[in-house]
């Protein structure tokens, strides 16, 4: 917390005595005059002269300090927040660029739904991003991390409480179109690994936003299960169910062949809490996000790394302003030396 001021190049502080130069310098641009005792006293002029000399000294001092690059040292600050550590794991695959059911899909005739969905349904990834952004904004106490995944995981934002970074990370998911592959297994393994070597300071959640499943092989399943158990991470799956996509709760042994259902069933066997939300339309998605928000609200202790803050540009700006004043005063000054 008490980050003292430190200097990157303290040896340059040796230049500081140069600041005394203007106070002692015999100005070369002064006019000569035979006898100053003759002239009327001018306190205003004397003050201006003193200030100008002081400004010159300060400008040199500010430059010397700026060269030494002062700053508040990097500190680690313990903080207590309410809420959870949330890792947003968002599908970046091309299927996320498809559209969801429009809001009024219940009033549409079954024949129109497909056509209407393709024409005016909201894009999945975009709706998800907007809702998540809203979700992040409404939960200032949580710490968020953002990852996208397709063939492999793209780490976007590490765990942080800074909303704007998280928002920017979420917004970054909207750049260009989706990628081709979807590998939920790898994404989950690497995401769980991101909780490793972090103090357990509150509930941990992975919020998986995806529209498709995958069949996982036995090794992957083992790794995921072990990871979730060790890191005690809860999993929420917001399943963006596209038009005509399978229902997670489909019963029957035969449904095991459907990747989404298989994934769902595997998740249910995890030792840590798991909940799946099926979202067909933006309203379902909003309800799911709100539900997640209600679920986790516990106190959270964590240490925040506050980066070094560099103050040198303040000093450069100060020096620049002072020099500007001096230049103006020089223009205002009458004539040169005689």
């Amino acid at each position, binding site marked *: 917390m008490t980050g003292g001021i430190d200097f990157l190049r303290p040896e340059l502080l040796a230049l500081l005595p140069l600041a005394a130069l203007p106070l002692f310098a015999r100005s070369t641009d002064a006019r000569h*005059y*035979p006898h100053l005792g003759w002239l009327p006293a001018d306190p205003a*002029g*004397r003050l201006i002269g003193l200030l100008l000399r002081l400004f010159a000294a300060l400008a040199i001092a500010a430059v010397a300090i700026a060269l030494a690059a002062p700053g508040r040292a990097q500190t680690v600050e313990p903080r207590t927040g309410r809420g959870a550590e949330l890792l947003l794991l968002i599908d970046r695959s091309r299927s996320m660029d498809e559209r969801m059911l429009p809001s009024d899909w219940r009033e549409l005739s079954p024949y129109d739904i497909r056509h209407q969905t393709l024409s005016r349904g909201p894009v999945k990834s975009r709706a998800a991003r907007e809702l998540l952004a809203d979700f992040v904004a409404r939960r200032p106490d949580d710490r968020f991390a953002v990852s996208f995944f397709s063939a492999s995981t793209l780490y976007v934002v590490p765990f942080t409480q800074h909303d704007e970074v998280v928002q920017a990370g979420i917004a970054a998911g909207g750049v260009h179109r989706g990628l081709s592959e979807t590998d939920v297994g790898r994404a989950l393994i690497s995401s769980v690994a991101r909780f490793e070597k972090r103090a357990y300071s509150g509930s941990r959640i992975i919020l998986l936003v995806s529209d498709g499943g995958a069949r996982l092989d036995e090794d992957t399943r083992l790794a995921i299960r072990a990871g979730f158990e060790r890191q005690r991470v809860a999993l929420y799956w917001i399943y963006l169910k596209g038009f005509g996509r399978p229902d997670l709760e489909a019963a029957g042994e035969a449904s095991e062949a459907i990747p989404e259902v298989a994934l769902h069933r595997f998740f249910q066997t995890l030792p840590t809490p798991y909940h799946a939300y099926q979202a067909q339309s933006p309203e379902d998605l909003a309800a799911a996000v709100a539900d997640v928000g209600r679920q986790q609200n516990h106190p959270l202790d964590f240490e925040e790394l506050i980066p070094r803050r560099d103050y040198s540009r303040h000093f450069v700006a100060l020096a620049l302003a002072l020099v500007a004043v001096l230049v103006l005063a020089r223009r205002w000054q*009458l*004539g040169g030396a005689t």
Partner: protein
Amino acid sequence: MKPNHEFHYRFGKRASAWRPGAHPGSALGAGEHFVAHTSLFARPDPRRIDLRASLRDPRGDWLVRLARQRSHVPVAAVVDVSASMDFGAPSRKLDLVADFVSALGRACLAAGDPLSLSAFDMTCRDDLHLPPSRQPGLADLLAARLRTAACPARGHDGLSAALAPLAGRQALVFLVSDFHGYGRELESALDLLGRARVTPIVVWSPAEITPPNGEGLLRLRDLESGRLRELWLRPRLRQRWQAAVAAHREALQARFRARGIRPFFLSDPFDGDALTRHFLEGT
């Protein structure tokens, strides 16, 4: 038109020197200023016998006319060459002084008076010294030296030393200086010159008595003390500047007036006619 540098001076009172010259003297001798008659025995100069007065004399003595002769007056110029005299543009104050000195040399030549020159700053400046002499051209030589003289000294402590050779002597003394920062030492120096007629030549460059044109910050450096001083030149300060100059002029005149001396203010260019007028008015 080239300004006229030539001038003529007057001593103002009777010179007591025996050596004949151009000024009214107090010594008796070959002159036209009749004083009295005395007996031929007291002054055996038959050329001066006044027949008319002798006939009127009740005692029947031969009477001789007594007259005062015209005498010379030693002239001395004592020049301050401290750093403050190194000021002024385009011509320095010392250039003005040089103009004056060479004109003084011609004036002395015309009057037949011996001229001595000396200069002082912190000490008496021997390189700018000229013993009393009637030789023409020496003043011009000294004027040329003054024009190129370096004056780094920051004071005028040599004033008394420079005036010491003139102490108690009857002479016409030109004290050439700007009289900046002269304190009690001026009075004690003038005390030395009790019998001399002192004409202070106050050399002020126009650049120092009038503030520069324009408005803004004026940064000045004292030539003698080296101190820096900033002035915010504005109409009000301009007035105060001129008022300060007028006050200094008045104060300087008052100091000299207390000793019955009238200073002559020399400005750029040196006006010889004004100096002649100054002498004519002063007697």
